[in-house]
């Protein structure tokens, strides 16, 4: 595959690993923010290639995991309504709400469909004027432009039967919240390349300077991630704290201005609760007043559905690197992958789920060096 296989080259990867080993003189804790990067790290076994004193902490950047229980419960309530076609990206279907998930709703008669793009949901709305079509708009800044476009398109087409349940979250406020949290161990960040492709990275020097942390804009292929880690370590070892763009083939300083314009029109900033972490001020987007009629929360009046997250869950501490998953009192007891309390147990790549599934096998280093 052109432009992919080049960034998965085994020999180049080994060379980067050697450079990382040479550059590292003491323990460091680095957080990759984006769930896509976490996926790539696990998928490619990058965590097993790093020197043992470099710890990667998986950040809160998986939209599936951080969507608060309350929003999931609202989605489930809407999806169960007669006359509604509820559209979602595939991996949201399995995320448990208080007492069920979208698969359960589907099995009991809800019309729940997996789509690949919010624009598919707009098309469904055109094809089914007799139905209410609702799209579950979750995700970070990366998925937001397509969602904004869908809402904008629905207005242009005069579609009265399309709406969106929005739970967008934003990366920079999450980074700030982690840095300001008590007992934070994270010393540097790999910034999410695709978020930056939309938003640029003008927001990051403020964070980097104020909290004295290197922030390296990083891509998703194995070589991108290894290179991002290498750049981060070089800064850490020299005592520097700068913003660096290690994903230049995709990311520019200003990002995608057209997309930003549309986002500013369709969405507005709001406080947002993150599953297992709590409310982070101004860390989300919701549909702006100008587009309120497309807001599913408004249309279906589900805002009064309130869900309290389990007080037992300490996924916020896990995300900050303050505790290991098995140090949480709920781990493996009240909280398991089939009945997760917090973000880090919801996703199979989340730190808690990984510990639960493979904890007894974590020491596979000897095999890696076989």
């Amino acid at each position: 595959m052109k432009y992919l296989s080049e960034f998965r080259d085994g020999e180049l990867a080994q060379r980067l690993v050697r450079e990382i080993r040479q550059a590292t003189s003491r323990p460091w804790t680095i957080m990759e923010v984006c769930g896509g990067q976490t996926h790539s790290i696990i998928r490619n076994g990058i965590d097993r290639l790093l020197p043992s004193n470099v710890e990667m902490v998986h950040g809160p950047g998986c939209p599936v995991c951080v969507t608060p229980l309350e929003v999931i419960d609202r989605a489930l309530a809407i999806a169960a309504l007669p006359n509604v076609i509820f559209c979602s990206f595939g991996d949201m279907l399995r995320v448990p709400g208080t007492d069920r998930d979208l698969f359960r709703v589907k099995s009991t008669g809800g019309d729940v469909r997996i789509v690949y793009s919010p624009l598919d949901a707009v098309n469904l709305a055109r094809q089914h004027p007799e139905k209410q079509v609702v799209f579950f708009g979750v995700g970070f800044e990366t998925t937001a432009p397509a969602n904004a476009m869908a809402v904008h398109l629905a207005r242009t087409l005069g579609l009265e039967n399309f709406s969106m349940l929005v739970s967008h979250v934003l990366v920079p406020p999450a980074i700030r919240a982690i840095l300001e949290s008590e007992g934070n161990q994270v010393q540097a960040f790999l910034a999410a390349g695709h978020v930056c492709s939309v938003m640029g990275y003008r927001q990051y020097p403020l964070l980097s300077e104020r909290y004295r942390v290197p922030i390296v804009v990083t891509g998703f292929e194995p070589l991108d991630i290894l290179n991002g880690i290498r750049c981060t370590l070089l800064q850490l070892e020299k005592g520097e704290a700068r913003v660096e763009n290690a994903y230049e083939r995709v990311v520019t300083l200003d990002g995608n201005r057209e997309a930003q314009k549309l986002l500013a029109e369709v969405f507005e900033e709001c406080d947002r609760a993150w599953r297992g972490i709590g409310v982070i001020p101004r860390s989300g987007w919701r549909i702006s007043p100008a587009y309120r009629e497309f807001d599913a929360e408004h249309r279906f009046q589900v805002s009064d559905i309130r869900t309290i997250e389990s007080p037992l869950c300490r996924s916020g501490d896990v995300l900050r690197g303050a505790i290991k998953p098995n140090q949480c009192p709920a781990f493996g007891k009240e909280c398991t992958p089939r009945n997760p309390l917090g973000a880090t147990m919801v996703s199979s790549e989340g730190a808690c789920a990984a510990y639960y599934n493979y904890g007894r096998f974590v020491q596979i280093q000897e095999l890696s060096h076989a």
Partner: protein
Amino acid sequence: MPDLSTWSCPLPLRDYPNIVMGHGGGGQLSSELVQHLFLPAFSNSALANLGDASVLARPQGRIAISTDSFVVRPLFFPGGTIGDLAVNGTVNDLSMIGATPLYLSAGFILEEGFPISDLARIVACMAEAARLAGVEIVTGDTKVVERGHGDGCYINTTGVGVVPDQVNIGPSRVCSGDVIIVSGHIADHGMAIMSVREGLEFESSILSDCAPLNDLARVLLQAGGSDRVHAMRDPTRGGLAATLQEIASASDVGVLIEEAAVPIRGETRSACELLGLDPLFVANEGKMVAFVDPSVANGVLSAMRNHPLGRDAAIIGTAVAERKGMVLAKTAIGGHRVIPIQLGEQLPRIC
């Protein structure tokens, strides 16, 4: 898949071009369906008696029996039909325990309104698949459900085969050191189905790998000897990953595979990439995995490669004494990852 371009339906289509409730009612319409559609396609002496059950000669060895139901959607997909799957699926299940498949039953659940021409195409594919696999369809049944209560056509097949007395193949015989061989490119079937599934259509030339594995399994057993071929499986739902998991859990070993050694077509890999799917978890319908003693691995591999269904066979890993019950993969860049157990179907990722 047989050439259907010149296919014409043998039924008198004037009256009923579509299935009506009466086709499952046991009367004249049922009988016409059997006489004009099923019998000509599946013709064999056991079926010709049209009794309530078929009487078959007792074979030498132990009897193996396996059943499977087929509800694939769409019914016709690139590289095959539900009919091919219904025959090959059961043939393959029998073959993987070292049985020679002999006979199949075929049960149809048809939805009222289902086009008889579509049924005829499916039945023709079943007949051709059975001929290729060397099995006979010796009994059958048809029921019709009201419109809206089915998905066009469901098929159940039960297969009977025979296992020689000395052959005992299964995961419990897998030992550490066993070499793991896969018979060819993985993930083609699942991605072929995806490419035509409603709402997901994308242009591709990926074809389902649907095929009967009994002859390949026979060749493999002959080359390796039934005492040194420890386990065989066809990695269908859940893909290669689920199959390796099953074997690791049911035996006393861990499994270590080399990801770069797993054969995957470029186009299939790209389609997986596009949809955010891991090809290791995507279904196959004409591939097998074998765990064999290292002393016969090379012989088995070359015998498989000489077979039309095993041309791209490859050694992908070994069974190891460590990490019992677990599947590990050495990744293309030299790292290691744990192949996780999936809770259900693999779902496309948001990001």
